[in-house]
């Protein structure tokens, strides 16, 4: 898929029972193929913003993705062409076998079995996890699961990759592999992180969005 351009204009999300938005009033433009960072401390709303962009949370403001405007704010359904990597890889992995899990997306996109498995193998190889092909997900380390989860989203050829702290569970070698895969991938990338920014910037990422620390939340008093 062609890389997608992302435009955020005053985007925000308010959780039920809380009187401030987290994140709030976020505006940014991320060009096609750009490798961008979403930076902010823990609790600043990075994951929520990624979910909002993906279309899985409703919120305020405008989200325009490759010309598809307002979809996220209205429907609560995932936008086409978006790949999402969860901070905890267990949240994104679904099937017990590594190869089958990576092939799940292509199979549901209508790709035939043999081609889907071939795509899954290529995707695993691209993130340096080809040796995990025959393994069971439950028996992988957290870092290995993160690589498999990344292979699973790359197997669908997304135009925008939304990555939530993707490097936090990886060792130095796996980090280097993943960073080089992301830097060389044609898709637009928005990577959320709260640490390791110099290494990411050295790999070609630029800080596009900085979220402030969460303001003191005043929950609506019950009753």
């Amino acid at each position, binding site marked *: 898929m062609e890389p997608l351009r992302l435009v955020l204009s005053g985007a925000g999300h308010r959780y039920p029972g809380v009187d401030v938005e987290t994140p709030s009033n976020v505006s940014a433009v991320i060009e096609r193929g750009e490798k961008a960072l979403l930076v902010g401390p823990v609790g600043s709303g990075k994951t929520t913003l990624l979910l909002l962009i993906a279309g899985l949370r409703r919120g305020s403001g405008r989200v325009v993705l490759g010309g598809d405007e307002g979809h996220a704010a209205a429907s609560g359904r995932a936008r086409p062409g978006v790949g999402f990597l969860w901070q905890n890889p267990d949240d994104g992995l679904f099937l*017990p076998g590594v190869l089958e899990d990576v092939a799940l997306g292509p199979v549901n996109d209508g790709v035939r079995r043999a081609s889907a498995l071939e795509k899954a193998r290529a995707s695993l190889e691209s993130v340096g996890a080809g040796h995990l092909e025959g393994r069971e997900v439950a028996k992988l380390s957290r870092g290995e699961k993160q690589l498999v989860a990344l292979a699973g989203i790359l197997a669908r050829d997304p135009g925008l990759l939304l990555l939530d702290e993707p490097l936090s569970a990886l060792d130095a070698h796996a980090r280097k592999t993943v960073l080089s895969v992301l830097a060389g991938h044609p898709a637009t990338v928005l990577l959320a992180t709260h640490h390791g920014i110099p290494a990411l910037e050295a790999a070609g990422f630029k800080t596009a969005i900085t979220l402030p620390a969460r303001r003191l939340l005043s929950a609506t008093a019950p009753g």
Partner: protein
Amino acid sequence: MRTDPRVALLFGLAATGSALSGPAPALAVLVLSLGLAAARRIDWRRFVPLTSSIALFAFLIPFAPGPAAVAIAKGLGVSVAVLVAVSMARWDRLLAALQAAGLGRTATAFFAIVFSHLETTGRDASRAVDGLILRGGFRGVRGLLDSTSLLLARMLRRSLERADRTADALEIRGFRGRLPALGPFRLAPGDVAVTAAAVMSVAVAAAARMTWNR
């Protein structure tokens, strides 16, 4: 060693049908299933949820009136056969076999979500038990009760929290109720024993029916 899911399904269907046909076939299915479980080294913990039924069976059979004893025997035979059949192959492959046999996308998605959720919940529960033991839980009757209630409450809470994320993850990964299909069938040596057990269970049911008809 895993069994081909089609063979596991064959055993499950044959054994279930046989167990439902009468008490003698049900007992035969019970023995065959437990034999397969031992041969395949199926984790004994999978049978824990059935232990109360087995205890009930052992306790009640000598005192129960005929119909109740027959019902318990049939129920136990079916439960153990299904458990063994499901344990012999990975759940996604069993579902893929059912999908190939005509199971609809909605039903496939439903069972896939349930099995995936159960698998994760099981892993989470195992970690929680380890955590509680390391923190001095499960000691004495009071500790056992307290730790068990803590464990159940945590499992319920985590399960509900995860349900949202599972729904989001499946949506974003484009899941529409399709699982990767199975490869071509190749009979492995391990499948022969399971097929033989399926045939034997049907043979016992047929023999019992013929004996009654005399």
